[in-house]
């Protein structure tokens, strides 16, 4: 049915990185939130190991490995993530890149944007950060710009709202 190796269109095409980095304060924010989650996990595992009578010794090793993994996660993840996460809003499109082990790039045309939300959790407020989520008519299409500083977020939301208010059709 199919042909092997038909000259693939545009070999060598690259999706360039979006222009802006997220706020540098995202690093401590990610670190703290990872720390909270990991500490809970490790403590629960440790308590379970200590409380359950007659748990074999290798379970202790598992708990230790979990703790070591958590330390690596807390130390490395925020730095890698800061290098990867980027965003850009042009007059025609929203473009983001995210991930730390994998990579995910998302692009949506502004003409198809339906809602623009910004969100600021309690911890995010402490670090002066906010996230912007742009949705389209597709459940697979929401784009989140994580952890930009709150002031930038306000500007971007205002700008996006102004642009999308000008478009008229039902964006499907």
């Amino acid at each position: 049915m199919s042909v092997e190796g038909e000259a693939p269109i545009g070999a060598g095409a690259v999706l360039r990185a979006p222009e802006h980095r997220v706020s540098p304060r995202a690093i401590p924010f990610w670190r703290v939130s990872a720390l909270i989650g990991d500490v809970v996990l490790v403590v629960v595992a440790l308590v379970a190991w200590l409380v359950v009578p007659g748990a074999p010794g290798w379970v202790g090793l598992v708990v230790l490995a979990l703790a070591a993994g958590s330390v690596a996660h807390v130390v490395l993840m925020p730095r890698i993530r800061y290098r990867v996460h980027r965003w850009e809003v042009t007059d025609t499109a929203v473009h983001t890149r995210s991930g730390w082990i994998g990579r995910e790039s998302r692009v949506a045309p502004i003409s198809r944007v339906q809602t623009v939300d910004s969100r600021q959790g309690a911890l995010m407020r402490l670090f002066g950060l906010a996230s912007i989520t742009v949705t389209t008519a597709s459940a697979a299409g929401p784009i989140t710009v994580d952890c930009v500083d709150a002031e930038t977020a306000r500007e971007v939301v205002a700008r996006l709202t102004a642009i999308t208010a000008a478009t008229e059709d039902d964006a499907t």
Partner: protein
Amino acid sequence: MIPAPDDGWMRLSPRKLLLDPVKAVGQAIVPVVVALVGISQSDMRFWPIIVPVAILGPVVLGALPWLTTHYRLTESQIQVRSGILNKNTSTAPLDRVRSVDLEASLLHRVLGVQKVQVGTGVDDDRITLDALAASDAQALRTTLLGRRAAAAPPSAVRAGAGDGDGDEAARQATDHAEGYAAPAPGVPAQPFPPAPAALLAAIDWSWLRFAPFSLGRLVLLAGAVGVFSQFADDLPIWNEETATSAWAWITQFAIVAVVVVLAVGGLGLWLVVSVVGYVLQWWGFRLVREHGNLHLTSGLVTTRSITVEEAKVRGVEMTEPVLMRLVGGAELSTLATGVEDGVTQVLPPCPREVAVGVGGAVLEQPGPLTRTLVRHGPKAHRRAWFRQLRNALDLVVVLAVAWWWFDLTWWWLAAIAVGLLALAAAVGEASYRHLGHALGEQHLVAGSGTLARVRTVLETDGIIGWVVTQSWWQRRIGLADLTATTAAGAEKVVVCDVRLDVAVALADAATPGLLTDFVPEPATA
């Protein structure tokens, strides 16, 4: 007939008074009987209370909706009011009505009523009127769809409406090229005279040969077997003595015969169930194109009438399940926006050529369903294999643990492991062969599926964003999953394990301009 729009609210068909109680009794009968049996075994005192409650409860509960549900058609809206304590009013602007589906179960048909569901496109909620007299339901459907057709495609207007109104509507339709966001034109809501409808497909009983190869109903059969086994437990033959002696007899003399009989019996049962199911579901199947809609009717016992607005169809998906492939069969669904469930199966299992033909007619282009796909190359091939082999290995490890735990013979495990790995290799190879992509003039085509071969065709106009994801493993070998997001169908179309640069170029070519800012070099090697 539907009376002319006025302020008066109308009730549903009075026959609903029969419909709902019967349905309620049907639903309540099992718990009620269980409760009665439970109580009768313990105590007789409560009988005088329980019997009236058991009988009156369903009747009252069933009658309430009829008393409290009203609907009306105004100049510009259809409104439905329901509820006792929480008054609930749903309204839909008439020019936003996207679909009107009619459905009638056996009970509905005995009573001569139909359930009407009105879809409005923007949100997923549908206005449901259960039930209207069949003639009222048909008239409502014609009114709603005819009215919308009068607002939108000029061709339908020419075919249908009378002199003054037709001109008026045509003028308005040209004023609003998009048509749908426009205010309702001043056409009175009258039943639209039937326009010539083009028949796209009708049932051909030679297609019945595909029924046994379509495994969708296997679940039903399994359920039936499960129910039967519940009763079989209680049969007197199942005491230990007969079972042991029967088993001894079987193992001595007749194991081959028993296996053969079971296999033949199972196949025969499956043949009957699948064919009967096919006939019940697809009896009188017709797919026609009228007023800019695809209109599907079918069903022997429960009849369905489904309407999909063509302007909202963004693509089609053709599925060839593995067994159907062997006999050259396929199924076809449309991917539409603004329908409750965006994927609508519009053809029964039928010959592949028919599915391709109807798909081409729906897309108004014959190409996309037959064109050759660009393959994703040796790395994707390897990945397809490894993915399946890894799944098989996981299973083998689990089995090995179980074997070690129960201390069973290792020969069996080895045999199973070899079998699983061989199967995984076959499935991996198949899934790679199904993988591919192509870009037509107006369509993105994605091939996917592990056992079934699935080909998804999406209008590039319907693409409202792109997602490129790479797992850690994919990054090592330069592959990516490209997702085209859309409002239609399953809301996304995924091109798996394609080279990253090819993915970017494909996305760039499919939606010209969108990625220009982000793809620095012109896409040439």
